[in-house]
């Protein structure tokens, strides 16, 4: 076995090679970054490497998921009975609401047929779990446990029980990364449910705050207004709740009102989310803007 001491004797002859090797690698990484930033050509490379990363993600996620599993397996019979009765009560309520929804839906379809508008297609959904893995330190991103194998695609919308969570930005084979709507680089086209006023909600980097920029001072918007996805832009299917307006500040000197909204989804607390396969997006021309 070569001892660490003998490294030094070899070093002097290797030093120029070292600098050259580093320069080559640095050039290669800059090339990679440029290509990666501008184009999507490197998706295959990313996918290949992400196959080696997946076991790491599973290992890191393991303690949390084991803990959750232990909690469910060791919960007492009483607790389970209690939860069961609570859930069946909830189910009754949602079913009652769904009945109305079914009637409304058929009415809507009839009216649309009268207007000769294209009928809306219901979206396909699937539950995915968020892995307890932290990702990109510069972004509000999450890792979910579904990937290409489950037909996840880039730009797919994610919702939880209360509203829109974000969109998939990178699909691996078995897991993917999603950007939350609160990321400072994220924008989502919305409309005010009450008036139909269309605007764009920008993320701010805070989990409980979105901003509506470019709304004129005289825009009809009030505290408490619900913002739903407008479906423009083609990424998010229309009609899902996004946020509730929290404050409206009208400064006469400034061209735009300052409007802040609170996301309806619990962005930093959710564990399970739903992936939406929007039928409308796939039939129309695919239009991928962020």
């Amino acid at each position, binding site marked *: *076995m*070569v*001892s*660490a001491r003998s*490294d*030094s004797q*070899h*070093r002097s002859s*290797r*030093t120029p090679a*070292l*600098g050259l*090797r*580093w320069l080559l*690698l*640095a050039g*290669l*990484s*800059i*090339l*990679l*970054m440029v290509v*990666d*930033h501008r184009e999507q050509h*490197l998706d295959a*490379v*990313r996918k290949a*490497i*992400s196959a*080696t*990363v997946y076991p*790491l*993600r599973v*290992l*890191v996620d393991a303690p*949390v998921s084991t803990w959750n599993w232990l909690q469910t397996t060791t919960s007492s019979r009483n607790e389970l009975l209690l939860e069961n009765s609570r859930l069946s009560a909830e189910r009754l309520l949602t079913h009652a609401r769904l009945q109305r929804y079914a009637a409304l839906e058929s009415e809507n379809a009839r009216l649309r047929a009268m207007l000769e508008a294209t009928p809306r297609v219901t979206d396909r959904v699937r539950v995915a779990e968020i892995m*307890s*893995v*932290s*990702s*990109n*330190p*510069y*972004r509000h*991103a999450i890792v979910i446990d579904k990937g290409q194998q489950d037909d996840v695609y880039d730009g797919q919308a994610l919702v939880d029980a209360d509203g829109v969570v974000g969109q998939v*930005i*990178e699909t691996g084979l078995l897991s993917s*990364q999603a950007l939350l709507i609160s990321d*400072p*680089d994220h924008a989502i086209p919305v409309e005010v449910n009450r008036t139909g006023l269309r605007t764009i909600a920008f993320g701010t*980097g805070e989990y409980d705050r979105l901003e509506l920029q470019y709304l004129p001072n005289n825009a009809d918007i009030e505290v408490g207004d619900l913002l739903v996805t407008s479906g423009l832009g083609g990424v998010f299917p229309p009609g899902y709740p996004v946020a509730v307006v929290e404050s409206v500040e009208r400064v006469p000197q400034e061209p735009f009102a300052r409007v802040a909204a609170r996301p309806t989804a619990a962005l*930093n607390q959710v564990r399970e989310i739903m992936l939406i396969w929007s039928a409308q997006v796939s039939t129309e021309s695919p239009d991928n803007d962020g």
Partner: protein
Amino acid sequence: MAEQRNARRLPVVLTLIIAMMLAIAPLPDAAKAFRPDWVLLTLIYWSMALPRNYSVGSAWVTGLILDVAQGTLLGQHALALSAIVFLTVRFHLLLRVFPLSQMTLTVAALIGLYQFILFWVNGVAGISSPAATFWGPVVSGTLLWPLVYWLFGAVNYRRRSA
């Protein structure tokens, strides 16, 4: 010979895997800004102790994996890690004879440079990154270095005497 080489590699690969896991482990929001650059510290140690086996090439490959694990630009961590490891290998003889306090200060400078490269790339690519997160890893990494050095020294010593 092949077995011997494997035995040499095992501790390095294992520590790198653990460092990678710590890099993607979830942390409470308050502690996130102070997450030390585990992979960087590990690579600094091994490239200082075994510069012939672990140099810019291994750092570059590790960086690519880290890029995918964190979802950053492909090549960002690879560039930063290989730059720091280049400096470490270049000056490994000097670093080895430094007293611990001086070595820690040098490592602090290296972490600072590492963070600077990452921020610089973000700036050029137009990815917004809060400047406040620059100093967190430098502080925590510097404080942790003596511990890392001692711990890895124990691993390295056992490996050599085995």
